[in-house]
């Protein structure tokens, strides 16, 4: 990461006319939103007029017009995150680095953030983001790197990765009858995994299993397409890991 790099000329100077920006959550608590953006713009050596022209647009982009004079401490988590995004955009970068942009947000705030990030992608900006939410990665990413303990274990487009590593369908079976069902129907799936009381049937042809399960009224189950979360768990295992 750039902030971990001591060598100003190599890291922090945007090269070949492009600029990057990284969001961070550190605020000056005594400054309001406008002042925080203004002061941050100066770190990039931007001219005053340029900064002042951008601030209203950025506040609008972040849906924070009504909070322009509020201090960061008065903002909700989602608002703070959007202010971070606005601040990272102050130098109109081509590349944005975002570290877990929606962690800890409620669904509405998360969807608003996703919408804004999609918007930036449509404007032609590149985004490099880290996330623990596989649906976020699936939604936003053209290219995906799966990292485990700092090592790359898969790379590619989300749909292609899923197709390459996983069966197309998943049937999750819950509750007391799940273990028995797994024993009885294991032949109908290509793979069965266990996580706690739940059994995951991975298969390409779900009809026979769904018919068999449908006949048994004591069993609760869910049929869905395989997703990135399945891929991640297949590649990294289902065990809880100690924080490395």
């Amino acid at each position, binding site marked *: 990461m*750039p902030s*971990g790099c001591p060598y*100003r000329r190599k890291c*922090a100077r*945007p090269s070949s006319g492009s600029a990057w*920006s990284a969001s*961070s959550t*550190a605020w000056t*608590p*005594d400054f309001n939103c406008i002042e925080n953006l203004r002061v941050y713009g100066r770190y990039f050596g931007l001219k005053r007029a340029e900064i002042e022209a951008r601030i209203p647009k950025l506040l609008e982009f972040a849906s924070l017009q009504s909070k322009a004079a509020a201090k960061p401490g008065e903002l909700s988590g989602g608002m703070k995150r959007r202010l971070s995004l606005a601040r990272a955009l102050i130098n109109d970068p081509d590349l944005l680095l975002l570290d877990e942009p929606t962690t800890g947000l409620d669904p509405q705030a998360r969807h608003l953030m996703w919408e804004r990030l999609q918007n930036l992608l449509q404007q032609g900006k590149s985004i490099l983001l880290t996330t623990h939410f596989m649906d976020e990665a699936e939604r936003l990413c053209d290219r995906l790197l799966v990292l485990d303990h700092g090592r790359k274990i898969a790379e590619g487009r989300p749909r292609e990765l899923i197709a390459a590593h996983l069966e197309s369908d998943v049937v999750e079976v819950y509750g007391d009858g799940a273990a028995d069902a797994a024993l009885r129907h294991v032949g109908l799936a290509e793979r069965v995994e266990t996580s706690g009381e739940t059994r995951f049937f991975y298969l390409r042809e779900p009809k026979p299993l769904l018919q068999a399960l449908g006949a048994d009224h004591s069993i609760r189950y869910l049929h869905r397409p395989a997703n990135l979360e399945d891929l991640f768990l297949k590649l990294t295992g289902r065990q809880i890991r100690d924080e490395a």
Partner: protein
Amino acid sequence: MLVSAYALPRVSWRFLPVLQRNLLVWIKLAGPSILGNIAEPLIPLVAFGYGLGAMIGQIDGLPYILYLASGSIAVSATMAASFEALYSAFSRMQMQKTWESIMNAPVSLDDIVFAEMLWAALKAMFSVAAILIVLFVMNISRAPTMLLALPVLGFVGITFASMALVFNALAKGYDFFTYYFTLVLTPMTFLSGVYFPISQMPEWLQVIAHVLPLSAAVELVRPLIIGQWPEHWLGPLAVLAAYAVVGYYIALVLTRRRFFR
């Protein structure tokens, strides 16, 4: 790590917005801090200067309150710069993560440390300016040379900010700074000819006293406050510069190691 932690400082003009940031925060909160900065040195000045001064009479031909005021103004510069470069800089570096977010912009750690050092010195000058006005208003001294004491005390601020940043770079928490104040700065104020002449102390202590940055500061500033030119200025300036240069370099190396190890 691409560049050695021991490389010489590389400062770009990007330090300016960092300095400006701290100034803007200070302006927002200036009211209470100005009052504190004036009141803190003023109270002992009145108590000891007038109270004790009535019993002591004169020291080195000066009324005690003038002797005390012309010494303790250097202590004020020292304390203001040290406090800013310890507690406040640590808040920005560690607690608020301000430095990290600044480094996400094209501003380097070297720029930030330089800005923090200058800012602490600038803040010392603000405190000192307030005290000079009080000395003028109270008619303790109205010498024109007092104006020159301001830049000199700015330089004293640079020296003590640089020294303090060494301890800032080493700190794990605020508690650590108590040691610096209690074991370094407080004894130094008693050894530096602020409250009584250095010549009152045993000879071996006098030798130590003469290489302390605060006694160098007092040697330069006291004459300027009372309306004279310093008898010796090269030696004290050299002492202050030595502490500033060595302190700043050590502080920078340690801060780089703290961030980039």
